[in-house]
């Protein structure tokens, strides 16, 4: 199947844009140790956004993989994880700041290095939020695609260095028109000395209609109800198919 659009985000890069509902968004790590910090907003109602606590507690999980859905603060599904070669994506470790980036990798400047200076998640997000009419007040916990951070029994957080291999993929399906903001910057808990960002390829495909036996819809009863809330929204907006909330 040929993609209808593709883009490679270079190491340290950023991208934002709206991807309409019913698309597959496939991410491929073009090197090992990738981390793509991601925030999602409902493109038609920007105060509705990905909500980490609602997503985690509804699915009784602290990590994200195939079958899980990414819920908004309005109880709806923004996107679902329909394919995943890694088994774990991080939801609790946030994005890098300018200060941390300078402290960890040394101070770099545009004046000295031109476009090879080391970008931070904080600045990448600030720029793309403002570009889309939002601001830093709209920052919420991000999803870190390709990273694994686990908590031991005392609650201490641990980044797993060799989790993401070159060629690892994860695919999201958009269930609503979604504004994505990406910052391709290292995981804040990645303790390696070198700036570990690698390029990430994004390909978009048309998705098949969601079927009754869909893995994400049927993953848990909670997921089904979140999908029903989403379908209700689309019914009221334009779809003619009626939805019964059970």
């Amino acid at each position, binding site marked *: 199947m040929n993609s209808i659009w593709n883009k490679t985000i270079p190491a340290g890069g950023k991208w934002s844009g709206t991807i309409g509902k019913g698309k597959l968004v496939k991410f491929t790590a073009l090197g090992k140790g990738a981390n793509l910090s991601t925030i999602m907003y409902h493109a038609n109602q920007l*105060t509705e956004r990905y*909500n*980490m*606590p*609602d997503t*985690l*507690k*509804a699915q*009784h*999980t*602290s*990590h994200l993989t195939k079958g899980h859905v990414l*819920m908004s*603060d*309005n*109880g*709806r599904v923004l996107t679902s994880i329909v394919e995943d070669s890694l088994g*774990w994506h991080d939801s*609790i*470790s*946030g994005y890098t*700041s300018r*200060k941390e980036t300078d402290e960890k990798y040394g101070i770099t400047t545009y004046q000295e290095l031109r476009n090879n200076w080391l970008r931070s998640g904080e600045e990448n997000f600030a720029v793309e939020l403002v570009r889309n009419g939002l*601001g*830093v*007040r*709209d*920052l*919420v*916990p*991000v999803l870190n695609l390709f990273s694994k951070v*686990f*908590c*031991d*029994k*005392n*609650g*201490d*957080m641990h980044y797993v260095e060799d989790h993401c291999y070159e060629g690892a993929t994860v695919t999201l399906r958009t269930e609503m028109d979604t504004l994505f903001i990406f910052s391709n910057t290292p995981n*804040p*808990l990645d303790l390696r000395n070198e700036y570990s960002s690698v390029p990430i390829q994004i390909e978009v495909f048309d998705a098949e209609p969601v079927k009754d036996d869909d893995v994400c819809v049927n993953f848990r009863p*909670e997921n089904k*109800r*979140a999908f*029903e*809330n989403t379908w209700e929204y689309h019914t009221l907006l334009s779809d003619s198919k009626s939805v019964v*909330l*059970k």
Partner: protein
Amino acid sequence: MAVLNYTESSRKVEEAIYDRVIPAGEGWMHELEPGQVLRIVDLEGNQAADTLFYHAEDPEDHYSAVATMLGQQNIYLSTGTVLRSESNKGLLKIVADTCGRHDTLGGACSAQSNTVRYAHDTLPMHNCRDTFMLQLSMYDEKYTKRDLAPNINFFMNVPVTPDGGLTFADGVSAPGRYVEMQSIVRTVALISNCPQLNNPCNAYNPTPVRVLIWDK
């Protein structure tokens, strides 16, 4: 169960400059001066006090669960935890805690999340996010829904397992347990005393909390 971190306070109730009970299902929004100490008391045990903070001089800089966890590389809040804003400023520091552990991953209940977690017919039930929004609407028009970032659940126990699970466990709190935090900057506190009737972790019985404030 991880080690819990208990620290008692030497502050005396009769010396507090502010003392108020927040009934179950009610909200509270109040500004704290730098150095002031806020104590929240779980009067009857296993109640959840859903709490957010804002930098009063920069209201768009809200409490950040992730910055707070990253600052200590640990997901549980207790004595010594600095409660951080999105821009990584220290807003307050927990200085005493007789509960031993508090959650910041579970967020606040809402009408919509209740439909997902429990059933569609829970939509009309009272919930924390409604309380937050009502408090914001009464406090100052500069606060909006955009400022409702994931919060702290004082007295709640939400363990995360090494294999990536997340559960709502029975509470580690008990009647009279409290948490105390000292404001570092001028801070606005926003509390929803959780009205959740669908979750066994409060025995389906939301109860009052008490807030006390001491001057430096």
